C-alpha cells in the first residue's frame, strides 16, 4: 500500500506530507490543490512509464515547480510504500528535480530506501545533494554503475536493489489506475484504435478494450464485474461487448430487465461501468518488466501476482451517480479495500465535492485540502473535536457544510 506522500515545491504543494489510508477521500474547495495531489502521484507513475525528460518537456517547469519555491527550489516527491517483501521494511521512493534557466531539469536524483538500506539509483547529470547523498558528491560506487565490485556484500546489496526496484516499477507501471473527472467511456470504439488492455486511460477511452479483453481472456473476472454492475445499478442485467468484424467496431451492449438491449445508456451508467472496469483491470496478470542481464533466468517470474496491492485513483467518482446508489458504491469499493478473502487487494484514493457521498466514509479516511492566503496547499485530517462533539447528532457531510474543519468555498 502507498502509505505516505511527501511533496516539496510541486505546484501548490510547497511542503506537504499526506498520510494515506486504504480508502482515502480528499475534500476541498475548488482550486484548493486536490488535483495537484492526484497529478503528483500520476507524475511519479508517468516518470516510470515514459521517462522523466519527455514528461518535463511536455509540462514545462512552470507546471511543475511552485511559483515561489522553498529553499533551493528543488522539486521533491517522496512516496512511502508498505513493505514489499515479508523480510523487508517500508520502501521510500524519492525523486528530486532541479531546474536550470532553460527550464529543464539539469540535475535530478532518484533513490530508494528499504529496511534501513539506502539505494541511490542512477545518478544525476551533475552533482545534486539528496537525503541519500547529502554532500552532493556524485557517488563513485553507485549501485548501478560499479559492476567491478565483486564483494559478497555488494552483490547482496545489488540483488536486493534489483528486487526492490523491480517491484517498485511494477507497482507504478502495472498496479496504478487513474480515472479523472472527465472520465466518460464511449459505447462504440473503432476496432483499429489501440490502447492498454488493463491500464485504463484517465478519460476512459479504452474502457471497451479492457472489457472485451476481460470477457475473452478472463471470463471469471468479467463475470464478477457483471455481478458488481448488477448489484450496483439494479437496472442493468448484463454488460457485454460485441465486435463487428465488417466495420471493425467494438460496441458496448447493456441489457436491461430480461435481456432487453438498452437503446441508450446514461452517463452515470457508463461511468460506473468504466470505473468498475478499472478496478477489475487490476485482476489481469501482466508481465514483469525485463530483469537485469546478470540475473539468473530462474529469477524470472512470468506473470505478475495480482494479489499485490493495486492503487485506483478516482476523481469525483460520484459524478452523475444517483444519491440512492452512493451507499452501495462505497460499500463496493470498501469490499475491494477490506478484501476479506485476501485475493484482490486494492487501495483507493478519491476526491469529491459531494457531502452525501462523504457521509459513507469514516472521518479517518478523509483528508481536508485547503489553499491558504499565501496560495499554497495544506492537507489535514478531520479534527478530533468533530468526531467527539458532533458526529453523534450530525453526519460528516453535514459537518463539512458547517465549515468547522474547512474544505469549502464559502
Amino acid at each position: 500500500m502507498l502509505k505516505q506522500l511527501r511533496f516539496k515545491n510541486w505546484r501548490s504543494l510547497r511542503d506537504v506530507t499526506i498520510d494515506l489510508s486504504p480508502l482515502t477521500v480528499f475534500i476541498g474547495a475548488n482550486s484548493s490543490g486536490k488535483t495537484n495531489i492526484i497529478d503528483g502521484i500520476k507524475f511519479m507513475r508517468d516518470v516510470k512509464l515514459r521517462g522523466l525528460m519527455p514528461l518535463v518537456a511536455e509540462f514545462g517547469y512552470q507546471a511543475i515547480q511552485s511559483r515561489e519555491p522553498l529553499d533551493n527550489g528543488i522539486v521533491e516527491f517522496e512516496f512511502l510504500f508498505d513493505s514489499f517483501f515479508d523480510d523487508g521494511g517500508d520502501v521510500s521512493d524519492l525523486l528530486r528535480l532541479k531546474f536550470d534557466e532553460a527550464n529543464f531539469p539539469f540535475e535530478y536524483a532518484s533513490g530508494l530506501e528499504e529496511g534501513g538500506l539506502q539505494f541511490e539509483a542512477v545518478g544525476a547529470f551533475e552533482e545534486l545533494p539528496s537525503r541519500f547523498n547529502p554532500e552532493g558528491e556524485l557517488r563513485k560506487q553507485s549501485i548501478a554503475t560499479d559492476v567491478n565490485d565483486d564483494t559478497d556484500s555488494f552483490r547482496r546489496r545489488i540483488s536486493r536493489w534489483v528486487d526492490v526496484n523491480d517491484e517498485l516499477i511494477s507497482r507504478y507501471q502495472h498496479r496504478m489506475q487513474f480515472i479523472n473527472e472527465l472520465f466518460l467511456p464511449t459505447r462504440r470504439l473503432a476496432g483499429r484504435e489501440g490502447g492498454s488492455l488493463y491500464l485504463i486511460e484517465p478519460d476512459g477511452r479504452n474502457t471497451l478494450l479492457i472489457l472485451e479483453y476481460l470477457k475473452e481472456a478472463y471470463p471469471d473476472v468479467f463475470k464478477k464485474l457483471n455481478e458488481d454492475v448488477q448489484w450496483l445499478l439494479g437496472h442493468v442485467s448484463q454488460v457485454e461487448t460485441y465486435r463487428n468484424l465488417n466495420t471493425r467496431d467494438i460496441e458496448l451492449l447493456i441489457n436491461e430487465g430480461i435481456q432487453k438491449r438498452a437503446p441508450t445508456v446514461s452517463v452515470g451508467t457508463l461511468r460506473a461501468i468504466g470505473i468498475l472496469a478499472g478496478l477489475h483491470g487490476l485482476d489481469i496478470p501482466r508481465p514483469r518488466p525485463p530483469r537485469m542481464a546478470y540475473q539468473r533466468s530462474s529469477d524470472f517470474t512470468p506473470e505478475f501476482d495480482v494479489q499485490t496491492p493495486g492503487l485506483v485513483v478516482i476523481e469525483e467518482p460520484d459524478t452523475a451517480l444517483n444519491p440512492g446508489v452512493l451507499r452501495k458504491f462505497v460499500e463496493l469499493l470498501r469490499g475491494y479495500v477490506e478484501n476479506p478473502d485476501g485475493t484482490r487487494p486494492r487501495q483507493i484514493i478519491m476526491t469529491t465535492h459531494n457531502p452525501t457521498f462523504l457521509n459513507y466514509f469514516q472521518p479517518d479516511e478523509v483528508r481536508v485540502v485547503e489553499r491558504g492566503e499565501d496560495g499554497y496547499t495544506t492537507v489535514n485530517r478531520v479534527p478530533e473535536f468533530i468526531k467527539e462533539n458532533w458526529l453523534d447528532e450530525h453526519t460528516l457531510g453535514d459537518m463539512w457544510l458547517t465549515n468547522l474543519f474547512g474544505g469549502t468555498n464559502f
Partner: protein
Amino acid sequence: MSGKIYLIVEDETDADAVRALLKRKGFSVSVVPIRAPGKTGGVSRVSSQIDKLITDTKKRLSANDCLVVLCDADVHTDPQQTHQKKIAAACKKHKVKYIPAHDSVESWFLADSGVCEWLGKKPKNWDEQAKPKEELDRWLKDNKKSRYESGGRQQVIQRLKGDGDIHSPSLRAALKHLDSAPCVRPSPT
C-alpha cells in the same frame, strides 16, 4: 498581516452580506463563515449549539483571527427573544463579540442607498419594521421581476454601497463592533 473573521451564522448567506459590507467600507479582512449544522430552524439552530460552536471554532483561530457571532434578532417574530438571550449569554461567557441584526440582515440592505436607488426607493431605517426580507422580496418582484431567494439576493449584494449605517442603528453598531475587532484592518490604499 490581517487575520480572518470567523463568523458564526445561521447560514452562509449572512456571511456574504458582511463580506460585501466590509469590502464597501474599505476593510481588508477575510470572512470565514461557520454555519450551524442541521437543516431546520434558524436562530434556534444556532442557539441550541452555540456553546459547542464557539468552543470548536476557537480551535481554528490563529493569532490574528477573531470570532464573531451574527444572528437575525427576529424581534418581531420572537418577542420573548429566548434564543437571542441564550446566544448573548454564551457570547458573554466565552468573551466573543455578538452582532444581532435588529430583525434580519435584510434590514441593512433596505437602508443602503445603492440597493434603494437600483430598486427606485428611498433608503431609510428598517430596523423597527417587521419582515424586511419579505419587503425586499416584494420590491424585487415589483421592480425587477426577480425574487430574493432566486437570483435577487446576489444582485442586491452586488449593488450595496455600504452606507446603510447612516440610517440603520443596528448596522452602525455592528460595524462599530467589527471596526474595533483586532483582525480587521483598513485596506491599503
